[in-house]
């Protein structure tokens, strides 16, 4: 698009072109450039690694501290080198705030719960499931995104299930079900949507 400062047309056609330009650019500005899909996928996979390590590998006590530290480090590195071409909207900042708040609460709750000796209790896992579901639910309301509402529902249903679980296998099964559907598959779905949106051509006005 070759915009020129001298392009100061004022015929009716020029004015209509200005209106069309404003509409296109306003729509472009509202389109979020932030990519969240990889975050859900990464955290979902880390939950699987953490659970697998806890159950199958030596030094299970290190599993969650290591997995959560790796996840936080990746998020920090990614946001530190935050890309060229950034824009920030109130909505994207709100969604980030919800997940950051949930992340801090979940880490403190996990550390406190484990140190206090409540780590393996069903109600402890249920609380984590409800917390993640709540973050999904608030994001879904902010973004008006039904599929994220479904992800929230998966976490909440598993949370309710965890309240009634009696064996550790049931707890593990519920946690992994929520991670698979509410993080891994949801993250992949979000990444597909993001790729489709970024492939859509931007209409420039000459």
């Amino acid at each position, binding site marked *: 698009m070759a915009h020129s400062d001298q392009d100061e047309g004022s015929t009716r056609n020029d004015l209509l072109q200005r209106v069309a330009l404003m509409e296109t*650019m306003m729509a472009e500005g509202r389109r979020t450039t932030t990519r969240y899909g990889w975050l859900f996928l990464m955290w979902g996979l880390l939950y699987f690694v953490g659970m697998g390590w806890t159950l199958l590998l030596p030094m299970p006590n290190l599993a969650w501290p290591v997995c959560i530290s790796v996840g936080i480090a990746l998020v920090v590195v990614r946001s530190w080198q935050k890309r060229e071409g950034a824009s920030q909207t109130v909505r994207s900042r709100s969604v980030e705030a919800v997940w950051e708040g949930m992340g801090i609460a979940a880490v403190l709750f996990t550390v406190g719960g484990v140190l206090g000796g409540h780590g393996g209790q069903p109600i402890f896992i249920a609380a984590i499931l409800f917390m993640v579901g709540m973050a999904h639910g608030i994001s879904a309301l902010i973004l008006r995104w039904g599929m994220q509402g479904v992800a929230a529902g998966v976490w909440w249903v598993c949370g309710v299930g965890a309240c009634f679980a009696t064996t550790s296998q049931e707890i593990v099964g519920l946690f992994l079900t929520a991670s698979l559907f509410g993080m891994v598959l949801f993250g992949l779905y979000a990444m597909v949507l993001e790729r489709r949106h970024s492939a859509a051509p931007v209409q420039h006005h000459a």
Partner: protein
Amino acid sequence: MPELPELDPVIHGKLRLAVLSLLIGVEKADFAWLKEKTGSTDGNLGAQMLKLEEAGYVAMEKRFAGRKPQTLYRMTPSGRKAMAAYVAALKTLLGGAL
């Protein structure tokens, strides 16, 4: 016959209008993003941003994202007021077309 309103010449330039329309929808945006969205060159966009800054319609902030310098722009309240007046003038000029 009522007098036709004048269009603000600072806003009326196509690139400046495109930038302001982009900035309306975001809290702030960096230079590279504005360049990508408008398809303009560094030199042209830089010159137009300077004009918008001088008019008080946008505010600039420089910072580092990691090790990369980043120039961020946001629309000022007077920029929003000027855009609203520009749209109102366009409406009057175009009559029922809007």
